[in-house]
């Protein structure tokens, strides 16, 4: 397959007309008019019931009794359900096992779903759920990842990624630095909370509308929970009101509960979590503690590095294993690390199980390395960017990553040089230094962040996709694929691909809800891979149909198949033409099939999970950013003033949608690293469970100067669909420049000599404490030098 530009084969010339243009999101007009239908907006079927969850009120213990009589007697209540009511298996684990839908016997975090109330209205269900009394035998709870590590409490086997001889390299390093720091998690805060609508059919049939990134997993787990075969269950989703990874595995739990309720009551059941319950009961981005030991040579080149990554997995594994894998495989970011000893530990704690979130461990891995670089550079008296530069993977050095993948498509220098120029680094660095000299209260900081991100699911098997394309007799096209639409514009991009295969305008291609009975055995729409996988699968299906149609057209025009052109809704040979619809009609007449299923499996990739070696990623994508911030040294309040971004998009399928992904991901990443703080009280209750306490960025928090350049000068080196590159996750990590700039602003108090003691998120409180710690360090230094001077002075007087 070679599809990056018009190409000739025996019968194929596929031109790029629709692909590459910045079409608006296919639902944009429906969004702005309030006409886009989300699952909670679907009209109720007669008899529809509503569900409210019963949540654990303690962090750890055994359930000793449940009194639900009052709830059962309450107005409108039709059922109160617990683990024992699940007809099949009480299992929601996406990878491992023993991750219950309803807590059975023991509860492992405060807010864990124990059961649910099913009632005629949502208000009745919520009121009745509050009447259920659960008694517990409470046990001590564990919240701290380091304590979990010491006690070897884990949810997933510990992972090791080793290369070279790290111990020896560290011992031989002239400069050696050890330390640790922590980074918080992040709530997805998708605007549409978790929701599912289960509709029982005949016998064992169950249709589940689920706000999920992974319809197949919903299908499989609903079947498991109901004790029926997969073919009895259809999982369906037209759109989600945001997902960001939060609906990759955990939407399954909500769907299963709706389906169990529908099965038990025989009625359609809708389950929408209220915001507070959603934030208490569903997982988030993993917080990590990183402990490191780094050795460098005199020039600032890494010789050896050991990092222990302790991830807060929460109460069960969920996707923590692969999240940790991605953290370990992204420690290197853009830097060649010749000897590594990386340990990834998934700590089991009594907090909600953490899950996928845009970047999936990658951001945490990169943040660790960048924090280490920022510290080491200052302590070695180097400019952090200079230390970065000596460690970049060379373009032609044949250097491989710690997991043995060669970095073949290296664009690090391209993006870094470009962003430094766009940002006018040297000029602004001088301006900022001047500002800092002139202002006592406010201090500015500036930092650059390069990003290399691996594209593909680490687990090779997930890198496959299917599609189903129908051409109707009027020439209109119906498209389904295994991907899901969560706002990223996947439906639009895939439709653009299919439109160009048929030479049609975009409006002639219609995509409807993703559903497991049209495209089976799908992977989650995740890992930035949605358009790579589904675009290619749809391309293959459309091409199959096109080839059949070309044969009919050649017969019609009495020409060779390679002389046929599809363009602008017409099929042409020299000066003859017919509409695409007329050719479709002719195909039908000649009994030629106008429907095809497509399939795609990413080539070249392989991964050995035991040794953590292989080529897990089809390709890398590159980006770089420069951010300027200001901090208030009296309160820690802070703000990003300007950001410049350069992002490599290969040959973009749709630059407008890509720009939306870049800007949105950056702001989301900035939230993770600044204002978004998860805060638990001493009882293990998350106290930031709504937007009044959990603060995501608002419109004024976006840098007032925000300049994004999409680098589209080089097609993807690999044969992706139309040579595009993935975009969903990589730009989130560009926000690390904001965090580094905040550290730089704190460091400015020492003239940039000392690194800030600043973890993530850099809330105003964290920034103020880092400022005060820096002031104390400078004060100690001043006193130290005074002492030294007075010692010298007294020594002199002694001589005298």
């Amino acid at each position, binding site marked *: 397959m070679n599809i990056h530009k018009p190409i000739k084969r025996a019968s194929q010339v596929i031109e790029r007309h629709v692909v590459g243009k910045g079409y608006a999101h296919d639902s944009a007009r*429906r969004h702005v*008019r*309030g006409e886009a239908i989300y699952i909670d907006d679907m009209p109720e079927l007669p008899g529809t019931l509503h569900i409210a969850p019963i949540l654990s009120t303690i962090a750890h213990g055994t359930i000793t009794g449940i009194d639900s009589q009052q709830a059962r007697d309450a107005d409108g209540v039709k059922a109160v359900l617990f683990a024992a009511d699940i007809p099949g298996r009480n299992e929601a684990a996406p990878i491992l096992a023993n991750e219950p839908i309803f807590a059975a016997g023991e509860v492992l975090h405060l807010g864990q779903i124990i059961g649910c109330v099913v009632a005629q209205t949502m208000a009745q269900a919520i009121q009745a759920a509050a009447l259920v009394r659960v008694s517990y035998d409470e046990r001590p709870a564990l919240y701290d990842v380091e304590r979990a590590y010491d006690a070897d409490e884990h949810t997933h086997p510990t992972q090791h990624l080793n290369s070279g001889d790290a111990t020896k390299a560290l011992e031989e390093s002239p400069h050696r630095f050890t330390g640790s720091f922590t980074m918080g998690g992040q709530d997805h805060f998708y605007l549409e909370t978790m929701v599912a609508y289960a509709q029982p059919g005949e016998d064992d049939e169950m249709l589940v509308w689920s706000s999920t990134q992974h319809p197949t997993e919903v299908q499989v787990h609903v079947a498991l929970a109901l004790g029926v075969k997969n073919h009895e269950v259809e999982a369906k989703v037209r759109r989600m009101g945001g997902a960001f990874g939060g609906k990759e595995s955990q939407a399954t739990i909500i769907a299963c509960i709706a389906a169990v309720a529908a099965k038990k009551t025989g009625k359609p059941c809708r389950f929408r979590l209220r915001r507070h319950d959603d934030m208490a009961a569903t997982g988030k981005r993993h917080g990590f503690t990183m402990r490191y030991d780094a050795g460098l040579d005199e020039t600032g080149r890494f010789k050896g590095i050991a990092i222990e990554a302790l991830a807060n997995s929460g109460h069960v594994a969920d996707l923590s294993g692969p999240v940790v894998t991605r953290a370990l495989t992204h420690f290197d970011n853009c830097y060649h690390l010749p000897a590594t000893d990386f340990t990834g530990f998934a700590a089991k704690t009594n907090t909600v199980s953490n899950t996928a979130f845009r970047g999936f461990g990658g951001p945490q891995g990169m943040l660790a390395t960048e924090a280490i670089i920022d510290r080491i550079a200052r302590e070695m008296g180097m400019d952090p960017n200079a230390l970065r530069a000596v460690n970049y993977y060379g373009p032609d050095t044949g250097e491989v990553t710690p997991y043995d993948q060669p970095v073949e498509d290296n664009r690090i220098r391209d993006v870094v040089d470009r962003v430094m120029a766009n940002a006018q680094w040297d000029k602004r660095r001088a301006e900022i230094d001047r500002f800092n000299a002139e202002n006592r209260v406010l201090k500015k900081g500036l930092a650059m962040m390069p990003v290399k991100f691996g594209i593909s699911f680490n687990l090779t098997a997930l890198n496959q996709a299917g599609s189903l394309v129908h051409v109707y007799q009027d020439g209109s096209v119906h498209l389904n694929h295994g991907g899901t639409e969560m706002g990223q514009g996947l439906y639009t991009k895939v439709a653009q691909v299919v439109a160009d295969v048929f030479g049609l305008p975009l409006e002639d291609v219609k995509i409807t809800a993703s559903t497991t009975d049209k495209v089976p055995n799908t992977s989650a729409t995740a890992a930035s891979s949605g358009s790579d996988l589904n675009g290619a699968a749809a391309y293959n299906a459309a091409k199959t149909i096109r080839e059949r149609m070309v044969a009919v057209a050649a017969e019609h025009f009495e020409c060779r198949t390679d002389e046929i052109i599809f363009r602008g809704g017409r099929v042409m040979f020299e000066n003859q033409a017919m509409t695409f619809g007329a050719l479709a009609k002719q195909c039908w007449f000649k009994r030629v099939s106008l429907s095809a299923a497509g399939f795609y499996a990413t080539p070249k990739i392989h991964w050995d999970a035991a040794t953590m070696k292989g080529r897990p990623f089809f390709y890398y994508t590159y980006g770089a950013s420069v951010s300027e911030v200001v901090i208030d040294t009296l309160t820690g309040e802070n703000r990003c003033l300007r950001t410049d971004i350069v992002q490599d998009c290969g040959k973009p399928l749709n630059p407008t949608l890509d720009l939306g992904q870049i800007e949105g991901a950056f702001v989301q990443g900035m939230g993770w690293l600044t204002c978004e703080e998860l805060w638990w009280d001493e009882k293990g209750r998350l106290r930031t469970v709504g937007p009044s306490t959990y603060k995501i960025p608002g419109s004024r928090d976006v840098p007032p100067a925000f300049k994004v350049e999409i680098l589209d000068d080089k097609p993807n080196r690999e044969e992706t669909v139309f040579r595009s590159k993935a975009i969903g996750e990589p730009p989130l990590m560009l926000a690390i420049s904001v965090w580094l700039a905040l550290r730089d602003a704190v460091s400015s108090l020492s003239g940039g000599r000392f690194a800030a003691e600043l973890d993530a998120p850099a809330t105003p409180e964290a920034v103020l404490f880092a400022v005060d710690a820096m002031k104390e360090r400078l004060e100690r230094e001043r006193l130290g030098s005074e002492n030294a001077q007075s010692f010298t002075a007294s020594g002199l007087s002694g001589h005298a």
Partner: protein
Amino acid sequence: MTQPISFSLNGEAVSASLRADTTVLEYLRLHASLRGTKEGCAEGDCGACSVLVRKPGDDRFQPANSCIMLLAQIQGGAVVTVEGLAAQDHALQEAMAENGSSQCGFCTPGIVASLAGLLDQKDQPEESEIHDGLAGNLCRCTGYKPIVEAAQKAARSVHKPLPQVAITPTGEASGDDTSKALHPCALQELFEMRADHPDHVLLAGGTDSALDVAHARSRWPVIINTAAVEDLRGVRVDDEHLIIGGAASWAEVLPHLGDYWPSFAKLVRRFGSVQIRTMGTVAGNIATASPIGDGAPSLIALGARIVLASPASERTLDLEDFFVDYRKTVLREDEIIKAIHVPLPQAGDEFRVYKVSKRYDQDISTVCGAYAFRQVNGTLSNIRVAYGGMAATPLRCPQIENALEGKLLTEAALSAARRAVKETFSPLSDMRGSADYRARVAANLLDRLAADLEGETVEVMAL
């Protein structure tokens, strides 16, 4: 006899024989089949539920959170939803669709409502005014930039008047037999209704109290709505005072503040959001007696007095004496807040208030410090200091005042004042900040005050 609740909805007269404590959002989605408007949080903080509302007796539409607004509050008023805007093909909608302003689209209808409200009031809003208009709307996908751009683009178009029909409220009880709203027009009538209905809930803006209803935790059989009570309405200025009526919203107060206390005006623009300020009242903010409410510290520092009225009598107190303990006040069961009187500044009077929170817009203070004083040749006098977020109530701080009264803001005076902060407060740790952080910030705000008075730029938002 209980009447149905009548109001204008997207330009058509509707009447609903429903519980008066039904939220407007619930009504729109479940009863009117208008499902464009979404529930994102049910606490008035995300804006997905935003609609435009013309309150009864008001002459303009303003954005409001339909998730915490009750049918009781729109009797005789008008509501416009995203569907109503779509019916007139609002230019903002096309501009947003063209400009990549939506991704998942779930926040979009609320954003359309908020910005259409802004454009209805302002022809050419500045970028900062667009941010003010968006402060109550969260978007998790786009990074907001394409939304702000679309608002700028749409501002260049001509907009039709928002659709509405006149509804004449009957003044009678409205709702149904299980939950009704009473709409007194005079203070005496209100007192009688309160006496007649011991189980009533007194409702002003509802931006705090209606949270319980929005979360389906409580039901209100009788709601007495203060909005129409003539003696409680409006904001006026006499020779010596700004007089804020007991039912006046923050939106009504805000335009009066800039002339007298620019710093207070700046704070109030960060008070909740446009949506919250449409409904939320100054008196309600004081009556809830939250230690982190943003109204009280400024009003205490400015020397505001509060007028409490009961059927028998009226009394006037210094606001600082109103608060007793955590969420406890001296308000007696038969009393209401009739008005708040804020003395107008005299020549030489200065006022500064600093709010510190995790996010600049629509967040609750971690610490709020308010300072009123007169400054002559650098010497401070008549100083009044109040803090929020530092104790169980908003607190006036005589020790800090004493440390600064009659002083130049020298390092010695500041250090005495910082000591006074330390001695006055033992703040709590919570999700908004640790006790240590609060203590440091409360003291540091005095340094900010000094730097501010010296003309240094002291707030990151000023850059």
